[in-house]
């Protein structure tokens, strides 16, 4: 609990102290990127299944403790259901990004072998091979989110996306945040509204139809991937 409280305090401090987010829009006239390498390990193995203003979170320390157990148990059950239908968020996202970017006349390939223990952009990028114009670095959080008690769970995706020059990775060609059914937002964040067809009233409903559970996240990932491709038109 103290660890959790510490993290909350740290997050509050960080959000109060850091510079506001400023996106970098892609300028088609200034850059001539045609060949893009996508960096893999874009998504965590497990999705979220989080209720924000939950009942327990309104009842002090004991409530917070109980709430953490409820949230963890729900998350585990949802991920087991997704595993049961072979859901793979990273593969789905990369496949959709590949087709959406190729639709914009980019040559796309995926480079594997990366690991993101901190779920952040890469610190260093591969050495350019002469055939690659830019690296596409995407970090995704996905799953289900409920605003709170008695509110439905809807698919959620937050994608931080960055296109860097392969010749000089310190040159950021595009930087954006795309949020599908998000709660926190800054002025530069792109906000996508969720499909109302994928709303689950509670944990039991989430687990009752695993295929539909997976389809809701897949649609959210597709929407986000298509948006990223539009940002690079």
């Amino acid at each position, binding site marked *: 609990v103290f660890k959790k409280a510490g993290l909350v305090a740290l997050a509050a401090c960080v959000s109060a102290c850091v510079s506001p987010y400023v996106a970098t*829009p892609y300028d088609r006239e200034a850059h001539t990127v045609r060949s893009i390498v996508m960096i893999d390990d874009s998504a965590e193995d497990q999705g979220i299944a989080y209720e924000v203003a939950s009942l327990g979170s309104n009842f002090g320390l004991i409530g917070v403790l109980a709430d953490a157990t409820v949230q963890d148990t729900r998350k585990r059950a949802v991920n087991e259901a997704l595993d049961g239908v072979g859901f793979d968020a990273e593969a789905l996202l990369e496949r959709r990004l590949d087709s959406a970017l190729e639709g914009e006349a980019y040559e796309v390939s995926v480079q594997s072998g990366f690991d993101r223990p901190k779920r952040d952009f890469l610190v260093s990028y591969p050495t350019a091979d002469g055939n690659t114009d830019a690296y596409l670095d995407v970090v995704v959080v996905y799953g289900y989110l409920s605003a709170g008690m*008695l509110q439905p769970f809807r698919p959620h995706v937050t994608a931080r996306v960055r296109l860097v020059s392969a010749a000089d990775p310190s040159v950021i060609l595009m930087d954006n945040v795309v949020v599908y*059914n998000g709660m926190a937002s800054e002025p530069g964040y792109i906000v996508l*509204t969720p499909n109302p067809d994928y709303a689950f009233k509670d944990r039991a409903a989430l687990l009752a139809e695993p295929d539909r559970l997976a389809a809701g996240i897949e649609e959210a990932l597709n929407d986000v991937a298509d948006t990223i491709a539009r940002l690079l038109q």
Partner: protein
Amino acid sequence: MRAIAVAVSIGLVSGCATTTTPLDPPRLVYDRTDCAAAPDLMNAVSLTPRSERAYFYVSRAVDHATPCWTPDTQAAPYIVFEIPAAFADKTLIVGGGMEPHRIFAARIMTLDAEGAPVREFAAEDFFFRQGLYSVQFRPREWERYILVTSDRDLVGQTYSSIHIGVNSGATYAAGTYVSYNIGIDESADRVFSHTGTVSVIVQDGQVD
């Protein structure tokens, strides 16, 4: 549980009680006949803050009294903004504001110093960003003004969205204050309109 029920009740009551301002409906027809042939650059709204700041917000209402022009055969209201002279480190978000029932149907283009069009943003360039149907761009060297007018093709279309968030509050129960958070999950239909609000956010990457 009882405290929460009370809190929910209070939240709902206060939510209803504060809705006293009449909501502006979308304007789907624009029929002024006294419009200029070209936008007036002399009255452009400055986007340069008095002192450097990370975010600079500028917002203007678009109503029936707003200047209008006739870009083709039909009139439309417009607002011209003047891009800061020190534009190199600026990122601009420009768009129509989301109000309870309407969104200004923004059509956005940049102009050079003489008022000639430099670039016009296509429908694919628009996204929803924190309450704005907007484009985001960095000004180019020869761009001096931003012209925002209404897009007749967009007017009348409906944007349906779902918004989630948390309302926080406190109440006095059993001799003590109880704070609470309530999740909200709201659906809304908004119609693109010839009138509404145009906003610009100037983000300065060099200021903390």
